[in-house]
């Protein structure tokens, strides 16, 4: 695990000053019920922003708007300077391209169970990014080795531990060369040991300069890796700031209550 994960650092250093993701006035309702009530958030390139908050606060919905798995009702989102949606309309011309630039890792891994680990990493390379078979397999093997799973490359997901599956899922997202990675509670379905494995991989990604948006309840980890922490409740940003400020010296009562609860349980 001493090697770097991909050439993320080199790719992202060129755009380091620019924000990777800009969200302005983002609103989203489901069946007339507002879930996001005007979110403003900048995610600078090569930075890690953690989103924390109670269940149902809209964290997942916010993430899913960034790769347009969910279409916002209002607001503007820019990814690497391109406006992908504005005022309820999708302006992104190539959704497949967007999703290659914005990778996503799910809470429940969502690996393809009928394919082995390496094939999971190959599939979208060949069928979404148009990469040739040989190159795709080579890259998949390399990425699996770098998340410490070279020896499991030809195993099926059902034969793997949760931690291994999540690392395959990370390799699968990395294979498309994303500039931003979204993690939605990547460790909350895992036991402590598996959590450790996954966090180690994410720590390396952070070191390599990958831009990441992370929803998590792992407050110690959030404090360790994030540059910025955002506390969301009821679809609004209640408080945001440097990780140590928000987590150690929260200003808002709601943030304090949340932090106290998870510090006690974790």
């Amino acid at each position, binding site marked *: 695990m001493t090697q770097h994960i991909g050439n993320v650092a080199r790719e992202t250093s060129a755009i380091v000053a620019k924000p990777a993701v800009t969200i302005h006035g983002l609103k989203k309702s489901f069946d007339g019920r507002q879930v996001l009530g005007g979110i403003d958030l900048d995610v600078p390139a090569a930075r890690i922003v953690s989103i924390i908050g109670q269940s149902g606060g809209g964290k997942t919905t916010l993430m899913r708007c960034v*790769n347009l*798995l969910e279409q916002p009702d209002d607001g503007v989102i820019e990814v690497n300077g391109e406006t992908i949606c504005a005022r309820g309309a999708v302006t992104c011309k190539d*959704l*497949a*391209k*967007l*999703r*290659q630039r914005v*990778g*996503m890792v*799910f809470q*429940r891994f*969502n*690996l*393809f*169970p*009928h394919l*082995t680990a*390496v*094939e999971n990493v*190959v*599939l*979208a390379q060949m*069928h*979404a*990014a148009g990469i040739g*078979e*040989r190159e795709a*397999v*080579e890259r*998949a*093997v*390399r990425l699996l080795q770098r998340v410490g799973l*070279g*020896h499991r*490359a*030809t195993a*099926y997901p059902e034969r793997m531990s949760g931690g291994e599956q999540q690392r395959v899922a990370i390799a*699968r*997202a990395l294979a*498309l060369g994303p500039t931003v990675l979204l993690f939605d509670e990547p460790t909350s379905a895992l036991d402590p040991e598996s959590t450790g494995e996954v966090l180690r991989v994410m720590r390396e990604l952070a070191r390599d300069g990958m831009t990441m948006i992370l929803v998590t309840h792992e407050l110690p980890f959030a404090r360790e890796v994030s540059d910025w922490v955002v506390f969301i409740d009821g679809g609004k940003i209640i408080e945001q700031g440097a990780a140590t400020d928000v987590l150690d010296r929260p200003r808002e009562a709601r943030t304090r209550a949340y932090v106290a609860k998870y510090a006690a349980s974790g």
Partner: protein
Amino acid sequence: MSLLHTFTGFLQVPWSDYASNIGWGLLRTLAYTIASFVGAAALGLVLALMRLNRLRLVRLPAALYTEIFKNVPLLAIIFVTYFGLPSVGVKLSVFVAGVLSLIFFYAAYLSEIFRAAIGGIHSGQNEAAQALGLGRGTTFGHVVLPQALRLALPGTNTMFVDLLKSTSLLVTISAAELMTQAQLIASETFRALEVYLVIAAIYFAVCYPVSQCLLWLERTIHAGVPLSIGRRRRLKLAKTLLAGGA
């Protein structure tokens, strides 16, 4: 005594004279089976997809179709198609009428199996595929369908063997398949018991290995053995790369 009688009866049927009849009959049975199964699987898949559509207008006709054809005897469908349709100007050959009847009937059952299989795929699979930038068609072809086929395999295999046996109903429209040949031979030799026993044994000799093969296929796929050449090639490449310390 009567057993002995049956045995000597077998010898009194001039089998060698009828070998080619039986051979051709068997071939026709297989032709009916394969043509009908391919058609029924295709129509069944279309019906299943229609029933999983968001629009009621698309779902409704498919549901109606399935309910009708599941609740009507196959023989009635055969008679309507072959004897009934000519009176409204649709005159079909025996083969076409037979195949169409079997397709109409079995598509209804297969659509139920396929619908349950496709509906049984976790929504997270679609999400993951979408998040990787895979298009709708690719997602269906490479993510949903392969998993659905695995789920549908046991039920589909049962239907395949059932369809093979049901081709014998086509004797009623003289389809020249195995059962029609049997009827012919029995009426010429007056040895109904022996002839039909032999024909039943032939059906068994075909159906049993087929269902065993399909079971083997199920087990092989379940064990994770890749069947497609592309998958084998990619896995082999991955293993070479891993072994070479690349």
